[in-house]
């Protein structure tokens, strides 16, 4: 049995080797950055894309493993900037209005099968976020779905640090109440949410001043008592210093403007507005602040603040100059973000390449990882998927998904493994049933004596 497990582990994560050279041949390459290459090839060397171009311009080195992808499509790995997949022990730390000290990287669950299912939908990178119960929710984590690898390897270590803010109904607890005996949570209004964020920045300034004073006195040769190191204040101070990117959950136009103004007032940069269903109303202001928007194409109406939404939001924001992406907020939707991107061609008439970018290069840019992922370009991480048809067709599906040159999902292998795994499960259940029956039998004579 142990051998079988070893085989499975091996099958799921082809062992990394320095000499990993793979040539994907004769596919339609959707580079996303520089157009479509019919009958094209992608050469992967190690963890990176070594070459991309028409078949005749890319030659396979002698040691290359060749994947014939005639008639298939290659798309960069899909990037989801709003994921709650693979988070253990609660997505919300609901107890306080500001929980900027909590970190998603501490609670990654590398056994969440949803991550594997998302790989099967071509998704390779995600911004893992907490829920939106707090005005400041905590430190998010940019991760790659390196299924069957330790959680520490999922973390993209040199990715920007990120934090989630949230506005509106959730942080003001509009739709849920603490149980009896627990007082209502501050804030209860949108004004209060703004104030929680503002106060936090003002507190962080005091905190920084305290440490500056300590450092100065130390420099003068004094022996001052060190101030407390406060994990929450450290994080907010790092936003002020520009070391942490802000991603903020929001719905309504008024609160979006509020946050843009607040960022001007307090001097922080918002990298991406999340959900942003009314972004189309204030797209110019969002664009003027250089802020991105990650939204749903046709998902709304699930609460009062999510009513005034339109499927043209994506196209309108994009046309107004907002760097826009479609993201999931859902383990299920994260498996088919390609289709949400496709709908932006219907609603608002984005070009094919613009629409493709909505789930690849644009979210990669929002995460400030566009130098590494999001398109098929030489030197980028070999994060990509081979599709059996154009990713914008509902009939297409992923055959193989690569992250950094390694195969993390392969449809054929998955189908083969199913039989083995079903057998292992049946065997194991039978073993348990047999043991239980034996135990019962042994117990019986005793019962009679009683």
């Amino acid at each position, binding site marked *: 049995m142990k051998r079988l497990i070893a085989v499975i582990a091996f099958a799921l994560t082809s062992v990394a080797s320095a000499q990993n050279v793979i040539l994907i041949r004769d596919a339609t390459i959707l580079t996303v950055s520089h157009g479509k290459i019919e009958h094209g090839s992608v050469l992967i060397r190690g963890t990176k894309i070594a070459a991309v171009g028409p078949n005749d311009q890319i030659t396979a080195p002698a040691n290359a493993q060749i994947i014939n992808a005639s008639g298939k499509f290659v798309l960069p790995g899909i990037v989801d900037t709003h994921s709650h997949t693979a988070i253990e022990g609660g997505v919300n730390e609901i107890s306080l209005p500001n929980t900027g000290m909590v970190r998603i990287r501490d609670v990654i669950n590398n056994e969440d099968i949803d991550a594997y299912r998302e790989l099967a939908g071509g998704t390779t990178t995600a911004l893992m976020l907490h829920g939106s119960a707090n005005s400041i929710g905590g430190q998010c984590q940019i991760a790659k779905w390196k299924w069957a690898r330790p959680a520490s390897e999922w973390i993209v270590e040199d990715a920007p640090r990120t934090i989630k803010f949230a506005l509106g109904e959730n942080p003001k607890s509009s739709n849920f109440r603490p149980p009896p005996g627990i007082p209502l949570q501050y804030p209860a209004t949108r004004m209060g949410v703004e104030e929680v964020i503002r106060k936090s920045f003002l507190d962080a300034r005091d905190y920084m001043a305290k440490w500056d004073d300590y450092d100065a006195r130390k420099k003068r040769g004094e022996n001052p008592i060190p101030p407390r190191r406060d994990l929450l204040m450290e994080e907010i101070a790092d936003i002020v210093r520009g070391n942490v990117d802000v991603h903020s959950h929001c719905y309504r136009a008024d609160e979006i403007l509020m946050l843009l103004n607040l960022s001007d007032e307090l001097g922080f940069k918002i990298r991406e507005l999340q959900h942003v269903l009314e972004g189309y109303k204030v797209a110019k202001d969002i664009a003027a602040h250089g802020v991105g928007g990650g939204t749903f194409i046709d998902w709304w109406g699930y609460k009062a603040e999510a009513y005034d939404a339109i499927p043209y939001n994506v196209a309108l924001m994009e046309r107004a100059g907002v760097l826009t992406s479609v993201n999931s907020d859902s383990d299920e939707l994260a498996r088919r973000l390609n289709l949400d991107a496709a709908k932006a061609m219907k609603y608002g008439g984005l070009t094919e390449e613009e629409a493709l970018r909505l789930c690849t290069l644009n979210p990669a840019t929002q995460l400030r990882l566009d130098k590494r992922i999001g398109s098929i370009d030489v030197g980028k991480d070999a994060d990509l998927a081979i599709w059996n048809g154009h990713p914008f067709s509902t009939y297409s599906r992923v055959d193989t998904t690569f992250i950094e040159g390694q195969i993390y999902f392969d449809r054929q292998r998955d189908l083969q493994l199913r039989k083995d795994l079903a057998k292992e499960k049946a065997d194991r*259940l039978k073993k348990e049933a047999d043991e239980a029956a034996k135990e019962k039998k042994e117990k019986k004579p005793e019962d009679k004596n009683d």
Partner: protein
Amino acid sequence: MSVRRLLCFLAVLFALPAFADAPGVYAFTGGIVHPVNAPEIANGIVIIRDGLIEAVGANVPIPADAAVIDLEGEHVYPGLIDAQTSLGFPSAAPPRRGRGAAAARQQQTPPPALPETSPAFVAMREIKLSDDDVESKRATGVTTILTAPAFGIFNGQSVVLNLGEGDTPSRVVRDPAAQQVSFNPRPAWTYPDSLMGVVAYIKQILLDAQQYSAAHAIYDRNPSGYRRPDDNASLQALGPVLRREVPVVFVADSEAMMRRAEAIAREFNLRYILSGVRQGYRFADELKTNNIPVFVSVKWPIAPTNKDDRDEQPLRLIRDRQLAPTTPAVLAKNGIAFALVSGAGKTSDFISGIRKAIDNGLSADDALRAVTIWPARILGVDRQLGSLEKGKIANVVVTDKPIFVKEAKVKRVFIDGRESKLPTEDERAKRTEATSPVEGTWNLTVKTPQGDVSIIVTLHVESGQLSGTFSGGRGSGNIRNGTFDGTTVEFAITAQTQAETSDWLFHGTLRDSTIEGTVSTTAGTFQFSGSKSR
């Protein structure tokens, strides 16, 4: 014949153990002696005097003043050590609702002293061991325990106790034994109520303790010109932990949880022990390389009782619960000295849990080491305990068959050189461990605007937390943030519909075998009620 000898003789004659006031001089003869530090002695002799072991061997002269205890064919062991229990503490944290709790909740940074426990909580001072607790434990051959509350996050300072007759101070072997830390989220809406919050909280308190030490070091050297730092018993209690004088026991079952504990320990340069370690089979080599002492809980995961539930489980869980009991064998193969402990398990399941490890490849000799000399070493009490060796504490257990054999019975127990009472058969039968009234499977109906939703919840109390599983109309999974104070039940589930996922927080009142109350959800507050299924 001395009076004592006469008494002993009579005692043996009537099969009534003698409970002498003072530890005397005894010679155990004729038994199969298992010294642990040396090979077994077929017809061995153990002499104990004034609470200590005086001699062990095949040809040891029997002192004239010794009471001879003839144990023909029986087995003699050093008393077993159970290095992770919460004996003498309530199974769950006391209720902490009310005005004080509400005020504490609003603080941005909760103090190191939570209402349930704190680093300054001294198990030795707070413990309330009942005779039942102690005697049931002895009946399994355990003469020494480490104990601390299982609830809270910083569970406090654990203590190593001998389970002899007498009061707590006379029982103490090592105090404090360790500072104990558990990754227990607090009730919903009380910081920290999520796992990520618990990790942040532990780190913050350790940072505060570092600052506290630094501040006091400066101030104590020369207070002139400094604002006096506040006093804080909890942060002070963490000083020895930061200085590596006292180890931290991290209660961590899964691989992921162990890695969280290791990350914290590395960041703060702590001396630490991992306890639980149910998934140790996965990375024994790493534990070996990093030389991490481990306590493996023999409370093995069990299959759901319902066949449908079993069939629906993913292979990952089934595989894990079958491989968990191989952990001790895998560790032993890697040359790791570990302890087998009851952890969150019941006293009566300790030996059967060890037997399961033996069934899964652990040798009986290693099993014995894992409840004697190995835990003694890890706890730093191996000069006093863990083997039958001259100069060690006279904790001696006599069994009729090899101790891990299914039919084996503990016949006599000597602790600190005194014979200690074992429960009689009648007492043993009566002492089926009380289960909490909330334990069991509940069929709940939630009245939502879309109609009634049936949810089946299976609840149990362990490690100071209400835990369990749910299934039915809103998906299935583990419950979170469970609490039970005797009447009020609270827990959260992640409710799934086709449209969305949201947290449902149940808050109910228990009456006999019914629960009634409310469910707080993002879509409003609903009524629910239900009863226990038979």
